[in-house]
């Protein structure tokens, strides 16, 4: 672990679209169940992502359910946590979702995502390459342009600072490192790769 986190991602293992469509269609019933049994304070189900806010010691914690099929070929690994086999999401899948869903589709830039990408370039370059490879060239260009427009000292002034990052170098230079990672990925691609058509989920 390279930084503590108070946000969780839950990833249903099914890969066919039907369960995700069902979750979206039955989102009101799902919300009622969460409220009744778990005391959720807000359930926001969007195409691709559901966010649930829970009360935790007088703070609202956030759980994100990725309601979309995985982006990479090997989305989960079978790890053993306290003698129980748990399908944890693979690093490449986590990074791909951050790039595609949060930074491109939602247009949200948060220090923790940039830090994760920056530290992956140093410690886990293989999964980072896999994650970048599933993001379309035009989407990467758009993420790169957003990073290019961030004001100076953006990281230092952000409302959601990193929690005890292990690498101060990656923490302080996350924007620059992420820009370089994406620029390198773009340079390595053929210049006239056609745009991928939007999926029905994105339209």
């Amino acid at each position, binding site marked *: 672990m390279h930084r503590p986190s108070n946000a969780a991602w839950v990833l249903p293992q099914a890969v066919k679209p039907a369960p995700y469509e069902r979750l979206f269609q039955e989102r009101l019933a799902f919300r009622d169940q969460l409220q009744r049994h778990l005391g959720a304070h807000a359930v926001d189900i969007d195409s691709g992502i559901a966010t649930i806010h829970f009360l935790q010691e007088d703070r609202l914690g956030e759980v994100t359910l990725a309601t979309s099929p995985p982006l990479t070929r090997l989305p989960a690994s079978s790890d053993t946590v306290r003698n129980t086999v748990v399908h944890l999401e693979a690093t490449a899948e986590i990074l791909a979702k951050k790039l595609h869903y949060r930074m491109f589709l939602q247009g949200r830039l948060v220090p923790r995502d940039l830090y994760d990408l920056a530290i992956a370039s140093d410690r886990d370059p293989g999964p980072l390459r896999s994650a970048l490879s599933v993001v379309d060239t*035009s989407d990467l260009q758009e993420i790169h342009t957003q990073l290019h427009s961030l004001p100076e000292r953006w990281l230092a002034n952000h409302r959601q600072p990193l929690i005890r990052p292990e690498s101060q170098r990656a923490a302080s230079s996350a924007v620059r490192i992420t820009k370089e990672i994406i620029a390198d990925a773009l340079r390595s691609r053929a210049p006239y790769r056609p745009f991928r058509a939007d999926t029905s989920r994105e339209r």
Partner: protein
Amino acid sequence: MLDVAKIRTFYFHPPSDDPEHETTPEELWAAAERQAVEGCLLRAGDPKAEGLGEHGSLIGGPDKPARCFGFNPEKRLPRNPLPLSWFDHRRAHALPPDPPEDPDLFFAGLSAGCLAGYPKRPSGAALGRIFRAADLTPVERDQLWHVFACIHTKNLVRLLARGGLSIYQVARAIHLSEARFGNVVAWINQFAARPELDGHATSGARPPGDR
């Protein structure tokens, strides 16, 4: 993580309308709860019976009935963009590193998608010009407002790389159109910086035609 104590404070003491203050998520949650109570009272309902406001767990505490929104107030509620001067820094004026191949085509798609049915809706080239203009007619302002009303966030992102706009131009378009949509304002405010901080443009540092 949201601070529930702050939500409760803002519920009873909403902040004053300061254009230089960026609305916090806690303020939006408090505003959503106030709106729910006001809506309940307007339709002659009973906030206590419905577990709203101080009668629900969010404001009243954990011993009150659970309060659950079916939406995320941070996305749904209108909010104000930060002042245009906060986007007057060097990087916000920078145009995309790679100039787009056909911005008119991108704006034509945006016009077709967001202004379908609008009388004499603008062509791609005309909509691009509206986005880049510093002065707009009332009709152009209305067209921009409608574009922001239904634009998908991914197309906001594409205004830069595919539309060839700078962050300053997008921020100015949002201000001129008086669009206050949560997703639009949350996205543009990410690129704001206090004018007194480093990196703000001097008058000679801006690309030509960017004012």
